[in-house]
């Protein structure tokens, strides 16, 4: 596939010299806004998740005037609330040899050498401040009997650096940030706009100056002008329709910014989580994650004989697994990866499950599921021992499936979970559009092509509490405070465009629901751009997306009007954006002729079936510039240089 590549490489603007002192030197070198002048600046923050809430609260504490937006009825309900497992930090409280350097190294390696070293090093550095901050706010992390913070090892890390609050770490961290935000709202430093959706970005004289929003209660379109715009609008896993993300997660804010000129980086880096509850039927609306920790004691297997598996004709999920003897089972992870066994990293475990099911050995609806068996663990630890470790997860599983995992194996299958790709940002978290900053899952920055468990919470909070609040000052100090008015042709044009789109959607009177298109898109993207991708599949997908989009724009039915609450209209707008965005996702996957992390190209694998990188030709970030509806995006490359971490092929045999 031929694409147009821009001549000049993208600059990360990272400081040169020793990486260990880079952030300190940078903070000294960048411009600082005079405290007395901060009130004159207004910053828009879109999103109230870990990234958005922490940024909005901190910017307000510093004295900036902040406008914060979210689509839920309360900032506390952002999708971050659902994170379960924990948050990493290089505290080395366990004295097991952790350090900033080790966290940095693990993250770059875990990301399969597709992340920017300077950003990752800074992330590891500020990770320790995040835990201090959260504890100061009253976040009730797990403790040991002596009163000190407890840690666990997570996602195959060799050290215990994960802080957690039972299975609700995201909830507790988000409530901490939400409370800090609430304090600033009460003090009048933040104006909060819940139930308000950003529909467009406004650019004036080449700088991001504001947004157009829709009030989801009244339906009114409104514009807001500021000195800088920060997007913390989350990831785009819902392009697959079925994912572990909350139903409202969307790409709209990021995609609208991309259409206004912000580059979209590495969209094909998506993470598939290996242990989720499988699809139960065609009505399925989302997939539920079962914590990765279950693989510490559960054994993964499928029946050797397809006749003990899913039967399409009768709709039977599989033979009663407890009646199958050891010789009738294939513990495929233990067989293929004797050293790591059931604990291989997420991408490896996910692909292996797909492979088993592709061979007709699936044991759930549609033949898409494998067993995660605790019989051996119950024998070893007793039922109580297992309950102590996983009680709440087992309860959740039983509530959803009706099966009791103490007596029969769980059924699990991989599901889309996280997106490493996002809007391109430099070391200052600023996009290529001056004045547009992107934080949290919405940017592409720190995880390369695969994110380690418990590192998303760390990154979102690092961005919001400890990085953006400094780096944005550098920009603001340079441009100075400007008059804030939405009375200009740029604002008017963006508002008109948003209104036109809404009118068009409401004018549709076909016979299909919005969700039916989202499902169809999701199935196609999952099929061809999910766990394993091929040239043919991606080419086919690229041909099909425009057709589906066309059908959407003639067959969908969006009832109701634009005044007041209209959830169909909200969803329709998001699905329309996914239908555009999916194309650049597929294009990115097609043009990255290598396998790395979450991006597995069937053509590029080792003899043993593992991902094979091509460092020679693909050690770069792909940042796509939107060039119009009917023209192909232009590829901008940011070369990745590895000065500190030695590139190796990952092996878990």
């Amino acid at each position, binding site marked *: 596939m031929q694409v147009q590549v821009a001549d000049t490489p993208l600059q990360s603007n990272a400081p040169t010299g020793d990486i260990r002192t880079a952030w300190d030197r940078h903070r000294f070198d960048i411009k600082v806004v005079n405290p007395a002048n901060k009130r004159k600046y207004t910053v828009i923050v879109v999103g109230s998740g870990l990234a958005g809430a922490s940024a909005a609260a901190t910017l307000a504490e510093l004295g900036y005037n902040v406008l914060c937006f979210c689509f839920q009825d309360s900032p506390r309900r952002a999708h971050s609330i659902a994170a379960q497992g924990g948050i990493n930090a290089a505290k080395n409280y366990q004295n097991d040899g952790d350090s900033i350097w080790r966290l940095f190294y693990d993250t770059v390696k875990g990301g399969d050498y597709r992340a920017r070293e300077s950003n990752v090093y800074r992330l590891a550095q500020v990770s320790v401040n995040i835990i201090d901050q959260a504890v100061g706010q009253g976040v*009730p992390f797990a403790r040991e009997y002596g009163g000190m*913070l407890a840690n666990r090892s997570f996602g195959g890390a060799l050290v215990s650096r994960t802080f957690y609050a039972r299975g609700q770490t995201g909830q507790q961290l988000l409530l901490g940030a939400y409370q800090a935000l609430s304090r600033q709202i009460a003090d009048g430093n933040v104006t909060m706009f819940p139930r308000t959706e950003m529909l467009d970005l406004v650019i004036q004289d080449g700088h991001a100056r504001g947004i157009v929003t829709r009030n989801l209660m009244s339906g009114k379109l409104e514009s807001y002008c500021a000195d800088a715009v920060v997007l913390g609008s989350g990831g785009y896993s819902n392009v697959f329709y079925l994912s572990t993300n909350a139903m409202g997660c969307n790409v709209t804010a990021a995609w609208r910014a991309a259409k206004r000129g912000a580059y979209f980086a590495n969209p094909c880096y998506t993470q598939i989580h290996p242990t989720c509850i499988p699809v139960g039927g065609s009505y399925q609306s989302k997939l539920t994650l079962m914590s990765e920790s279950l693989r510490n004691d559960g054994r993964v297997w499928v029946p050797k004989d397809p006749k003990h598996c899913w039967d399409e004709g009768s709709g039977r999920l599989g033979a009663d697994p407890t009646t199958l003897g050891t010789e009738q089972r294939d513990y495929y992870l233990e067989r293929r990866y004797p050293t790591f066994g059931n604990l291989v990293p997420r991408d490896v475990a996910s692909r292996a499950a797909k492979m088993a099911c592709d061979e007709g050995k699936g044991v759930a609806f549609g033949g898409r599921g494998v067993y995660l068996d605790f019989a051996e663990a119950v024998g070893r630890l007793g039922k109580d021992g297992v309950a102590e470790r996983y009680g709440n997860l087992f309860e959740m599983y039983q509530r959803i499936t009706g099966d009791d995992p103490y007596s029969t194996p769980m059924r699990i299958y991989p599901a889309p979970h996280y997106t490493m790709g996002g809007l391109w940002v430099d070391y200052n978290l600023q996009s290529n559009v001056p004045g547009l900053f992107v934080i949290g899952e919405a940017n592409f920055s720190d995880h390369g092509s695969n994110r380690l468990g418990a590192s998303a919470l760390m990154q979102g909070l690092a961005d919001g509490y*400890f990085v953006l609040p400094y780096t944005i000052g550098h920009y603001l100090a340079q441009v100075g405070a400007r008059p804030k008015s939405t009375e200009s042709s740029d604002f008017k044009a963006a508002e008109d465009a948003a209104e036109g789109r809404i009118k068009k959607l409401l004018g549709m009177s076909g016979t299909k629901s919005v969700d039916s298109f989202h499902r169809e898109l999701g199935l196609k993207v999952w099929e061809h751009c999910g766990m394993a991708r091929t040239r043919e599949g991606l080419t086919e997908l690229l041909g099909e997306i425009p057709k589906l989009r066309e059908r959407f724009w003639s067959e969908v039915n969006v009832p109701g009007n634009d005044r007041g609450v209209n959830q169909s209209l909200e969803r329709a707008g998001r699905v329309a954006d996914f239908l555009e965005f999916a194309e650049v996702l597929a294009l990115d996957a097609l043009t990255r002729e290598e396998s790395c992390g979450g991006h597995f190209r069937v053509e590029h694998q080792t003899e043993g079936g593992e991902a094979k990188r091509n460092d020679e030709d693909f050690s770069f970030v792909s940042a796509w510039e939107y060039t119009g509806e009917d023209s192909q995006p232009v590829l901008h490359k940011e070369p990745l240089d590895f000065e500190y971490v030695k590139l190796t092929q990952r092996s878990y045999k």
Partner: protein
Amino acid sequence: MKITLNVWRQNGPNDKGRFETYVRTDVSEHMSFLEMLDVVNDDLESQGKEPIVFEHDCREGICGACGFMINGVPHGHRARTTTCQLHMREFKDGAEITIEPFRAKGFPVVKDLMVDRSAFDRIIQAGGYISIRTGSTVDANATPIGKEIADQAFDAATCIGCGACVASCPNAAAMLFTGAKLSHLNLMPQGQPERYQRTQDMVTAMDAEDFGHCSNFGECTVVCPKGISLDVIAQMNRDHLRAQWKLRSS
């Protein structure tokens, strides 16, 4: 399964509202309650009719967005379960199910099953935090916190802000919600400096909203999807009493 639904439809805050009946014969017992409503809505939408408005987001029982009355009980009859986690296998084939919005003065109906719970945010804004600035803290392990206190604070902190407590209370009181946040913060050492002022401010904010007073029915704790205990109300009342004395004498 065959299911007959009586659903409250109300066009807006000023509409009188009425029940509408929908009958489905294709319900699978494995569907979640909201997936069952999705199917109803999908049909309505493809016929150009307005779907039933209800709130939801995570569908994992943690964001607190979902919630309405199912046969008169917030989130339905299954204990410790949010609406989004309720599954159709909990109902009998042929069941008739009535769903309506939370009914409480403090939660005005917006549309159909959607209510306005912003009063909860205002209560938190009044003092539901520890006033520290980003970066101004000591090392996380500088203050040891006994496991017991940490666990107790955690139990209170698990509140998801869904509002079921208010909806179940004959007085529509918000004591369990407010008490949960106060217990969380007031139990921990970090929360001590502002303990009494916080209690005073949050209780005042709660009283300023359209919530009633607690008369110890205890319905709230029964319907709470996180099983938050009435202890948090007792703790709040104690702290509130002490607050009035302390704040007056200082």
